């Protein structure tokens, strides 16, 4: 997963369903709808997203960082006020 070319669109995988259901919660996709699966005490749902880091564009997976503590912060939008 190297640095991506600077195309206009960079597809990223989004939610990555677990292959072994017993290993953790599964992203249940029905008719394209994804249900919430995040719960404390349960495995964090894996995903792939395109991203920006220090001047470059790259795709990242949550599972790239397994073995580290992770702080995952969602926010309503760039340039919002708080």
């Amino acid at each position, binding site marked *: 997963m190297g640095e991506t070319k600077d195309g206009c669109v*960079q597809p*990223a995988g*989004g*939610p990555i369903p677990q292959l072994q259901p017993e290993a*953790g919660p599964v*992203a249940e996709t029905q008719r394209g*709808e*994804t*249900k*919430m*699966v*995040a*719960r*404390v*005490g*349960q*495995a*964090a*749902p*894996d*995903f792939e*997203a*395109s*991203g*920006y*880091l*220090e*001047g470059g*564009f*790259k795709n*990242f997976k*949550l*599972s790239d*960082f*397994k*073995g*580290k*503590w*992770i*702080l*995952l*912060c*969602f*926010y*309503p*939008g*760039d*340039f*919002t006020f*708080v």
Partner: protein
Amino acid sequence: MAAVAAQAGELTKLGVQVLSVSTDSRFTHKIWQEEELSKMVPGGVPFPMLSDQTGAIGRIYGIYDEAAGVDIRGRFIIDPDGIIQAMEVLTPPVGRNVTELIRQVKAFQHVRATGEVTPSGWQPGRPTLTPGPDLAGKVWKQWKVENAF
């Protein structure tokens, strides 16, 4: 996010990888970094800023607002085994408390390292408790409510 970025050094010292996510594109992240964040925090945001333009990631984390089309303010502390240890979700007008977030990281790390438990408001150096039959009904002897503040 600037407040989290301002504490990035402390979070790195604690071995925490920060990932921020919004429904903006990676191009918008770049311009926000260059035009604003880098002027609020020296060096700007030093961690990956991820793009969730379809809201699919926000949906599985339960923080996607379908009506507004944005990911609301949810933050998740995930341990080295990939288990979610803490989550906090706020509606957009109220920002997070990064100091409390760091306190929780320290508490979860202490619990993981020692097997002790951290009472309300615990800070590093304050008393912890070791659960067991002998402690049942005797917490009042070992821990005072003033310790929570």
